[in-house]
């Protein structure tokens, strides 16, 4: 699952400088009619967007629609297979799997959103700066980032998660640490190519201040790739969060969470209670898939060489 992160990271790194400037942003806002004209890519984005939003909505309204309190134990006999009363059956604690599936997305969403935000707040500025300032500063940052990047991310995440302790925020931070490098690399490579472009040179020649160049001329052109990385990174964050929970670093059990249900279910696997893991597992996949689809579509739009 960590492959995704790296995969997507590199994928975007390869985006060449032939990126179109104008129109990119508008094209990046999903749901626009223009999307459907963009063929598969467009549909991917729309589809992904729909999947994600629907999950968000479900999670949001779950408190009012769940048939049972998701954390309530013994609402039914333990390990009932799916039936009319418990659509997705019950788990070993006699909790209603269906209710938990409906309301269990919260943690995943919070963690992913938070970690992506952290990544953006850290990765983007240092990426811009490092590549713009260059020199020893750049070298040093690159070295650090590459070291993190070259190291199995999950290990790092686990260590940091163990250090910070429980809670959504801590999880988000530990995940963010792993992914900042991918942002850094993408932005850096982008800026380096854009820096050379004539209109930037022109701006400099015209005596624009460093800050102005960075914010007015360079940043806007980096935005598309940032958006792409961020979208894919959502999926990565979700899957890593699931992984951390699986290792036993999740949030306390009185909050319904797909990750925990999967982990818990893995212990029931041998007794053939497939429904305990199947549904939360599918939900995680759907959520991650939603973001991945969006990321895929967006990166294809941002990357003309693959467009017919």
């Amino acid at each position: 699952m960590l492959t995704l992160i790296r995969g997507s990271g590199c994928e975007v790194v390869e985006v060449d400088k032939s990126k179109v400037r104008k129109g990119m942003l508008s094209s990046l806002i999903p749901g626009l009619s223009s999307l459907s004209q963009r063929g598969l890519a467009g549909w991917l984005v729309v589809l992904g967007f729909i999947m994600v939003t629907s999950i968000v909505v479900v999670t949001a309204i779950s408190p009012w629609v769940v048939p049972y309190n998701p954390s309530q134990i013994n609402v039914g006999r333990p390990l009932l297979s799916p039936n009319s009363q418990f659509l997705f059956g019950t788990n070993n604690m006699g909790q209603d799997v269906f209710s938990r599936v409906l309301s269990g997305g919260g943690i995943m969403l919070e963690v992913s959103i938070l970690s992506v935000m952290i990544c953006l707040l850290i990765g983007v500025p240092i990426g811009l700066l490092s590549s713009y300032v260059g020199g020893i500063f750049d070298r040093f940052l690159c070295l650090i980032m590459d070291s993190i990047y070259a190291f199995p991310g999950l290990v790092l995440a686990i260590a940091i998660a163990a250090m910070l302790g429980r809670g959504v925020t801590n999880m988000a931070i530990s995940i963010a640490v792993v992914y900042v490098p991918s942002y850094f690399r993408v932005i850096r490579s982008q800026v380096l190519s854009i820096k050379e472009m004539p209109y930037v040179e022109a701006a400099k020649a015209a005596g624009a201040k460093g800050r102005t160049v960075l914010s007015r001329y360079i940043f806007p052109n980096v935005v598309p790739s940032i958006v792409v990385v961020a979208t894919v990174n959502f999926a990565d964050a979700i899957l890593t969060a699931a992984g951390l929970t699986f290792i036993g670093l999740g949030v306390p059990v009185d909050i319904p969470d797909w990750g925990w249900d999967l982990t818990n279910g893995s212990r029931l696997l041998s007794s053939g209670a497939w429904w305990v893991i199947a549904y939360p597992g599918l939900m995680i996949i759907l959520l991650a898939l939603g973001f991945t689809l969006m990321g895929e579509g967006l990166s294809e739009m941002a990357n003309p060489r693959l467009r017919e």
Partner: protein
Amino acid sequence: MRCLIVVAMTVLFISACMLTLQFECKSARAGFDSLLVLGTTDSVETCLDPARAYDYFGWEIIQSLGCGLVEYKAGATGSIADIDPSLATSWSVSDDGLVWTFNLRQGVHYDDGTEFNATHVKYTFDRGIGIADADGAFVGIGYDGIINNVTVSEKYVVKFYLKIPFAAFLSLMACQASYIVDPAHAPMTSVVEYTVGDARASHPMGLGPYTLTNWTRTAGRDSEIRLQANPNYWNNASGYPKTKNMIITFYANSAGLALAIKNQEIDIAFRQLGATDINDMKTNTNLKVWEGTGAVIQYLVLQEKYAPFNNTIIRRAVGAAINRTTIVDTVFLGQAQKLYSMIPIGMFGHTDAFLALGDPNYTKTTELLAPLGYNATHKLSFKLWYETSGHYLSSPEQALVLKSSLEASGVISVTLDSADWASYGTHRRNEDMEAYVMGWYPDYIDPDDYIQPFLDSSGGSWIHHNYNNSQMDKLIAWARGNTTADARSSLYSQIQNLMVQDCPMIPTFQGSAYAVTTLKIKGVYLDITQSWRHWLVYAEE
């Protein structure tokens, strides 16, 4: 086209794999006259030297490789009567309870042929106490606090002079830390550690029913242990060990172990199977589920350092709001016993003291809390901690159940928090957890080992619950010193009643021991000693 080829190849590969299935099972047994394969999720923590080993599984192996002066008979309840002669044939204690004399069995030999005598006993204890390995059992249990010195009075007679009268001394002698080592393999001043590829050099024992023929550790965990009958075992004559070869294989988690026993890849699965697995194995006609009282207990600790639990009333109120039935039924699917005392069921001195608080008795809770201003609108709220490293069986589930049973009182609200075992320990030391779940595996099988480490103000310091009651300390000291069974049990019942009064910690349940085997397996004894006796187990062909 290429797709077709690929498909064809995968099919071929898979079928080839399936073909190998049959003769796999055959060859696994090849070349052993009598062999049993036991699977477990345990692993030796540090080494197989009694001077250091202080973990359940390490002791289990030591028990098969060595012998103590005495041993518990199969099906023991922890009372003096259950202690059988082993290397010692008979023993006596002075009236003041300070001198123990053991007459040793003669003509016993180590696996290397050396004859066993009293000097070896002295050597063993001098060594253990001398090395005083920081995290070894000798330090942990505090031998030097109990034993003054050991003297060889005759070739086959050894005397122990104690510092204090210690009622549980025989139990102490029966515990694996007191097993006799072979001076030839146990240097006086250093611990015998795991040696890659050399099983004999990896343990100092040699008097037990088995010898260690292979011990492989990968990634700092056991991956295989092989035991072979020891030709020099003193009890060979009576046909022990029943099974000549034991292979112990190791699983990362209970799910793995469960799958293995279900596919009959192994003959025995012992520790730790999940409750659900055990439940549906009970209905599995190819498997036999053995059940026995376990010695592990769990309890809820209440931090007395600050509010709310610096108030005895509140502690009692919480004690009254624990629904042990749900814990046992929901978390362990009935595979545990409700525990109303620190002293486990089936051990002498046990009483159901905590029933006095009810199980649960919410009216009592409400009544106790009402005067303190806690009620349905203004609830008593606190944080309940549990560990997530699987150090105890299904802690998260327990926490969940505890929460719901406490909140069912209507006047308590609980938020859960968790930490992995290491951080949990730190929190415990920092005393920043209001309430936390803990458990206990005994060292020696005696009520003392369930009371002194918790309720004695010095002995219990490690829990950091800040419980301190001089009256309690007195009682414990008396119970320790007294050697007459009924005097002790009366003392223990007083202790337990006092505990209910103070309610420093609330016993919740006592785990049962389970082993799952194939149908042909016989000779499994799961008793309070919680030890797996490899040498009694055999397959009935």
